[in-house]
């Protein structure tokens, strides 16, 4: 199990708005796929998948505000 965590995006950036999930709960994902898009005031950031597996436990929805370090979902690498 690997947690998908919103990484540090830069000095002074504490949160971002989740703007788009490229996959749904239960979908298979491949390492480096664009997983989720987040938007700060002037940048759109696409978080690549940290590994291959099945996407589970999505914990934020589109429109939610996410803090740096929050867990966005889990990837089950055994499936």
């Amino acid at each position: 199990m690997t947690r998908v965590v919103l990484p540090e995006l830069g000095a002074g950036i504490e949160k971002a708005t989740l703007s788009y999930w490229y996959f749904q709960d239960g979908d298979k994902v491949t390492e480096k796929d664009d997983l989720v898009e987040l938007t700060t005031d002037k940048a759109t950031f696409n978080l690549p998948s940290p590994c291959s597996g099945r996407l589970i436990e999505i914990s934020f929805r589109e429109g939610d505000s996410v803090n740096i370090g929050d867990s966005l979902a889990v990837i089950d690498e055994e499936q």
Partner: protein
Amino acid sequence: MDLKLFDLGLIDYPQALSRQREIFQAVYAGQLDSALITCRHYPVITMGRQIKAGNLLASKEDLQRGGVVLYQAERGGDITYHGPGQLMVYPIFRLDYFKRDIHLFLRKLEEFVIRLLGDFGVMAQTRPGLTGAWWNEQKIASIGIAIKKWITFHGLAINIKSDDLKNFSLIRPCGMDIRMTSLESALGRALEIGEVKEALKRRLEDDQSSLTGIRRGD
């Protein structure tokens, strides 16, 4: 950083986006280290995923009359206008060169455009809490970037020609009540886009390290 320049000339927004994606892939695949695209767009209003009702002020008839196309962009953010009087600058850079710090990259882009405008004698500034470059409390260059796989795309729109500013009245730019200006207005004289492109090339040659000279871990 080894920077390759591409000038796409006057080009439709979707066509430029598709060229941008190809060049992005070349950078991602390691065929290019970094790239910088310049171009101009036919009049287009692009809308991001966070567009708020009311920020498009024009009716379909207004847009048709002005020859402005509406484009739903696959990006976050609100609404913006691009036209042939702007010089677009799209850096396809590895964010690793900027310590994977989006704000650092945005600041470097702002500094770059402010120095470029300074080459024409126009002293633009940043404004606290806002991105872009401002002259006389009006916006002269806008920044909107995207990042995929830790590589940047989209970028910078520099308002050069004054006759293109009227189309900003079709929208509330970025959902804010801001006034736009142009390099021509700031200079008080006509200017060809080509002059700005030449100045940009010179600035990149003289000063590439100021835009691109930070490596991860430095």
